[in-house]
């Protein structure tokens, strides 16, 4: 499988993204959106998307280098525009969290409707520990605490199946938000201010020459997203991923074959929450603020819709979907109000028409060439 379809697709998407971010008038934006809405099914029909997916799978190094290069170009183009840099950094950090969610229900089938709550744990960790502890450590602590908080849910989740397990995460999400809202020690409904990130002496909130200071966060976000991506891909292709898939596809059969279902579910759930915690900690330092209202059930639903839109279990689909879900509504000013309605309808349409998402997860290759 040649590397060209993958590289060509990445270049085309970068070009589209650049035009999209630059577009000022609503007419231009709508035109580009229409182009996308029409173009994607057409490309799917002629098999281009499938070819891209296979090409990206076959040449991982080239694919990753191309994406990083494309991102570098976009940063160069918009280096002094605060808002664009902020959006890029948000997309990257949300990708980290959604990659975690992918491990949870894309691979292991453990449904998690409390993703935003774990982002919140990370965020509040930054707020509380930020002034006292070196920030690189704060990120890790954020991830660790999120994993720890998630572990109280493990027992109920292991004992329940399907809808019951979903209820547990939904109840937890609401519980978390209510808890931080009524708890004055964590700032109550007003939330807490968070210090800007300071990594080993590099103060991220101070701009380098005419570069927007948010660009610093884009670099950190890129590092985190790249690490998460590589980790998730390695995980998927290893025997760990194989076991997780077995657990997801048929628990009884997996147990019959000696796979410890409980152990893999715990691993997936904890790992996913760890990612979400790190992403939440970094995001809070970037926006400088955490409040209970940022981590509602609706926000968890947005995370789930990103994972589903990209393609359940598809690591490449996650950043793409995050980009669409976070950037498109910002640009369409007229649609600001209708944002959430459109997400909901988009997910409904996808579930009915193309449940495998934008970049479907390619079939596992058992015998690599």
């Amino acid at each position: 499988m040649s590397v060209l379809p993958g590289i060509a697709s990445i270049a085309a998407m970068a070009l589209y993204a650049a035009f999209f971010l630059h577009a000022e008038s609503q007419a231009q934006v709508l035109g580009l959106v229409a182009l996308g809405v029409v173009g994607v099914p057409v490309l799917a029909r002629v098999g281009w998307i499938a070819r891209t997916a296979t090409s990206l799978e076959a040449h991982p190094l080239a694919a990753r280098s191309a994406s990083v290069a494309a991102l570098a170009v976009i940063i160069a183009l918009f280096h002094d525009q605060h808002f664009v840099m902020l959006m890029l950094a948000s997309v990257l950090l949300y990708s980290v969290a959604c990659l975690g969610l992918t491990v949870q229900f894309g691979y292991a089938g453990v449904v998690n409707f409390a993703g935003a709550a774990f982002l919140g744990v990370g965020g509040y960790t930054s707020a509380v520990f930020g002034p006292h502890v070196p920030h690189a450590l704060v990120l890790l602590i954020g991830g660790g605490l999120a994993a720890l908080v998630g572990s109280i849910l493990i027992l109920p989740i292991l004992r329940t199946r399907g809808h019951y397990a979903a209820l547990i995460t939904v109840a937890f999400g609401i519980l978390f938000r209510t808890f931080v809202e009524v708890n004055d020690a964590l700032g109550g409904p007003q939330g807490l201010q968070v210090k800007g990130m300071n990594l080993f002496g590099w103060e991220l909130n101070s701009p380098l020459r005419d570069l927007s200071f948010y660009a610093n966060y884009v670099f950190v976000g890129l590092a985190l997203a790249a690490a998460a991506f590589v980790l998730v891909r390695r995980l998927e292709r290893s025997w760990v991923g194989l076991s997780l898939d077995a657990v997801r596809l048929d628990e009884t059969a997996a147990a019959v074959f000696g796979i410890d279902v409980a152990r893999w579910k715990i691993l997936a759930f904890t790992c996913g929450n760890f990612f979400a915690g790190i992403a939440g900690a970094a995001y809070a330092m970037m926006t400088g603020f955490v409040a209970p209202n940022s981590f509602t059930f609706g926000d968890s639903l947005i995370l789930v819709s990103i994972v589903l839109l990209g393609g359940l279990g598809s690591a490449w689909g996650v950043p793409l979907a995050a980009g669409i879900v976070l950037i498109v509504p910002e640009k369409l000013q007229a649609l600001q109000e209708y944002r959430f309605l459109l997400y909901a309808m988009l997910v409904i349409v996808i579930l009915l028409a193309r449940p495998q998402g934008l970049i479907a997860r390619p079939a596992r290759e058992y015998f690599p060439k």
Partner: protein
Amino acid sequence: MHNCVPRVFWAAALAAALASDAGAAKQTVKIAYIGPLTGGVSANGIGGRNSADLAVRLRNADPKAKYRYELVSLDDECKPNIAVQAATKAASDNSIVAGVTHYCSVAAIAAVDTYHKFGFPAVVWGAVLPDITYRNNYAEVHRVNGTMINQNDVAAKFMTGLKYKRWVIIHDTTDYGKGHDKYFTEYLTKYGGQVLGRFGVTADQQDFTAELTKAKELKPEVIYFGGLTPIGVRIRSQMERLGIDAVFEGTSGIKSDSYIDGLGKLAEGSLSFIEGAPWEKLPGGLYFIGKYAQQKYDQGPEAYGPFAFTAAGLIMDVIEQVGPNRRKVIEELRKTRDKDSIVGKISFDDHGQNVVPLITKYVVQDGKWVVWEDSEYASGRRKLK
């Protein structure tokens, strides 16, 4: 290949910009308006936006103005996190010079750090929490309306003066509600009133039967409410449901038409306090109302509309003086002393706070907010409970 693309972009963008700008003679200056355009207090937010919009229109109709102004309005939903997002959006857009910001205290207190980070001049028009101007000494933040300190002083003094003694305080758990609780308790104890109990409720709480049942046990004469209209309506309505016979004393947060719309007859006899002279009685106020009616907005200015109008006018005056440069606007705004406006004279102290000594008392009579002194309650023809 990638290097040619940006040049093509900028060429195309420049051409488009020049083409669209060909007709304009004056430079366009953008100012932001941030307020709760959706949600429970949207009446105030939309009223504020219309008032700021009115100020911009009147200025654009003035041939002596040096610039053409454009109002960019953003919604803060009365939520701190959304307020931070809206503030970031306005402040990170270099074409927006200054902002008329925030009705909700929770939104304002969250956003002030953002304005400071970006060096964005902001004039608060409706939030009353003192911390907004007094917690830090940010050069960027100013406020034309008063703080809740004076409001609560008058509220406590007035009711103890009418010989009420027993209070229960219900406040929302945001910084706004907690601020009211703090200052009111301080003044009430000073004037000899007694606080029998105090309940904190969340800003979007539906069911108050638990708190009100406990309050009923305490047999208060007055229930003081520190919070905004949506839960004020619910609490008053559920008080009725549980048979609690006490006076409902609110703050500026409930002085809106939506409070009366939500309760109908039950609103009768509710009290509220607001800073500034009743602007209906000032000539500037009548001018404002006249012009406002001419524009045929479908939402009235509500209690703080005149302050939004004043804030916008003040910003535009300063921009006319020093030009559309954020730093210069900040310096010039801070120097405002004894400036005339429809809400009285504006003078910013060293923290950017306008000092407004006068507080007006209002009571609901026959479905309208009436100034206490003009009401039948003051003359004795009607009695509060």
